């Protein structure tokens, strides 16, 4: 449009100048168009956990910049609602959470204050990763707080099952595609690569755990159920008498006796729980305590979600 207008008004002398200007502008325009993808801002993805950030980064590749509000080794039930989270959520194109009320104590206020219409529940920038996951420990009958910190929709620690990670990635892929449709093919490709990698590792780990199928373990908090379910282990009980409540001396003694009587060899806990109590139970019962880094970025060999899964399962297999 610009060139048509300038040509029409050009004089003979001016024609040469105008033409050279047109050429320069055309080149500049071409340069801009070709360079645009290099300057394109990646999609800003904010997640509540490091696991979600890791999976989102795998699915999004260079097209997204995924950040977690929390670090690894965080008690996700009790996170301080820091105002800087509001700032991060304000700038986010996509917001991803675990759901099932795991973050109920801190994210509703942050979402309300984020002043970002696109990431509110029901909008295209909001993603809850649980869709499609087969839930465990869904309570039956009347549920109230006398039972502890109950999750009424089911156990929210579902990301420790590698296959659930693929389902989470699929939900994330769909959200990324909805927000950045022109790169749908890349997201699909990245998802397929991630899925293939995860399935391959899962198949390997299943073989690794085959000799241990049916073995019984004790846990501190009910956060290993999905992993146990995947790899055929049985959770004989938990050190917490009620969900999220530190047990009293009476229950600890009962637990020690149970572990001894049933000859259970392994007690699992994660670093964010009450490791002291878990250690005491393990020592008094003669079981081995495994402190499992169940969140990405919690310790060595947990830099990515997939690495974290592999580290945990191999740790378990080596000690069962």
């Amino acid at each position, binding site marked *: 449009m610009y060139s048509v207008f300038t040509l029409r008004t050009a004089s003979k002398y001016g024609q040469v100048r105008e033409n050279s200007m047109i050429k320069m502008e055309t080149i500049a325009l071409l340069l801009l168009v070709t360079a645009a993808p290099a300057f394109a801002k990646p999609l800003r993805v904010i997640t509540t956990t490091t696991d979600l950030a890791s999976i989102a980064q795998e699915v999004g590749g260079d097209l997204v910049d995924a950040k977690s509000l929390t670090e690894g*080794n*965080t*008690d996700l*039930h*009790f*996170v*301080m*609602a*820091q*105002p*800087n989270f*509001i*700032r991060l959520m304000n700038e986010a194109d996509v917001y991803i959470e675990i*759901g099932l009320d795991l973050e109920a*104590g801190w994210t509703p*206020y942050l979402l*309300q*204050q*984020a*002043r970002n*219409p696109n990431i*509110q*529940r*029901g909008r295209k920038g*909001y*993603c*809850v990763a*649980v*869709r*499609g996951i*087969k839930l465990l420990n869904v309570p039956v009958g009347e549920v109230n*707080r006398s039972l502890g910190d109950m999750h009424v929709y*089911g156990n929210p620690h579902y990301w420790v099952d590698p*296959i659930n990670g693929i*389902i989470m990635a*699929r*939900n994330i892929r*769909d959200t990324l595609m909805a927000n950045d449709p022109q790169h749908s093919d890349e997201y699909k490709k990245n998802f397929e690569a991630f*899925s293939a990698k995860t*399935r*391959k590792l*899962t*198949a*390997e780990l299943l*073989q*690794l755990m*085959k000799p241990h199928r049916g073995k019984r373990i004790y846990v501190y908090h009910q956060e290993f159920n999905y992993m146990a379910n995947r790899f055929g282990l049985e959770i004989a009980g938990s050190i917490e008498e009620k969900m999220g*409540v530190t047990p009293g001396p009476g229950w600890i003694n009962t637990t020690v006796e149970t572990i001894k009587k049933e000859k259970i060899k392994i007690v699992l806990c994660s*670093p*964010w729980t009450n490791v002291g109590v878990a250690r005491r139970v393990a020592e008094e019962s003669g079981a*081995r*305590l*495994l402190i499992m880094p169940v969140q990405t970025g*919690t*310790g*060595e*060999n947990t830099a990515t979600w997939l690495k974290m899964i592999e580290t945990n399962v*191999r*740790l378990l297999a*080596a000690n069962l």
Partner: protein
Amino acid sequence: MNQSVLTTLFSRGAYAFFLLCAVTLFAQAKLEKKQAKPAANNATAGTASADIADENTADTMADLDKEIAGSDGVQSAQTQMTQQGQQIVTVDRSSMPNILAAIDMVADKDVKASKTGDETSNSMFIRSAEFGFFGAIDWFANGMILFAMHREAGGYVFALHEASFEFPSLPWNFHLKIGRMFPDAGRLNTIHQHDRVFTGIPRVHGQLFDTVIGEGFLDTGGELSWLAPLPFFSEFKAGVFNGRTFGHTHNDGVAKAAPLLLGRQKNFFPIAQGFGLQWGTSYLRYNVTRDAGDVDHKFGTDLMLKWQRGRWASFEISGEFWYHKEERVLTRVEDKTGFYIYLQWQPFERWKFGYRRDFFSRLNLVNVVTGTKYNGVDHGDALWVTYSTSEFFNVKLTGERHQYDLVLGEAYVMYAQAVYVLGFHPAHRF
């Protein structure tokens, strides 16, 4: 007990408490670092599984593919897909508001009354009982309503406490809240008594905001806030309220020449995960009578430094400073200033220990006998211990020393408090 002995005990206790907090916090941080290393397991990790049978892997892969494919389109209990492919939460309570009931029960006792009489009621009573509803009004607005019963002047008064709606999805980083509310001036005014870390009322807050029950000042109007597009959290807020009354009242007051105006700015600086500093400043302007020249100004600044490790441990230092300036057409002005600062330390999951220092001064007092000017200074200290079985129930034991200006002298009081919450409770702000 001798008065000076009590004073010494309080001051020495406070110093010892500060020292203990510092030492234990360092120890706690070291312990935390140690615990955060899963590599410190007494168990050993396995080696690569090179010897896995490949023929079994193919079958397993096929099973996994089937399982993943089967989950596509399956809806978990909490979610479903809309026609546009977006995800929305459709829980069974989608049309039900969240319901709150919070009860604040207090027993108070004068250990030593001031010169003018009893400091407390020397009884056990329900200081406040609140119930309310919170939820989404529709796709655009959230709303809440809260009723409260307070003990005032020997009886219980039941009233509408707060009723407001807000828009969380306004463009250009704005947020609007309209209705009856505790305006966002300083820190304490928006925190209900049952949610505060201490039982007693800081002198500056009681004198400048609510001389009746010490909860705070309520008004009807609106607050518009804006989140600045800066690398750190920085929020600017402006509020306009009726200003017909100020403080805790149960009447509609009288029409004033101008509404109550509020300005607030706050910033947050993260230091580490679960550790940050918030700093805010506030300004209030309102007419105290129908006369346009009778104006009160309040200038405040507040601070919160907080560290928290899940439910296991926390440490916070917080305080507010206020300067109250009066303009009067006919009567004498009485400017005031004061602050409170507290620290609370949670060394174990269920126990919290705290100390608060109060200071309050009237700046324009004149000795009627000598005609000389003097500052009426009140100060005080509070020590408390809190035991919580969860975030919904706690009991607290508090000892307070109040040192008033020359006329009233010194007083010592004890409080025992129990707070319990039924149902929902909104997330706590930083």
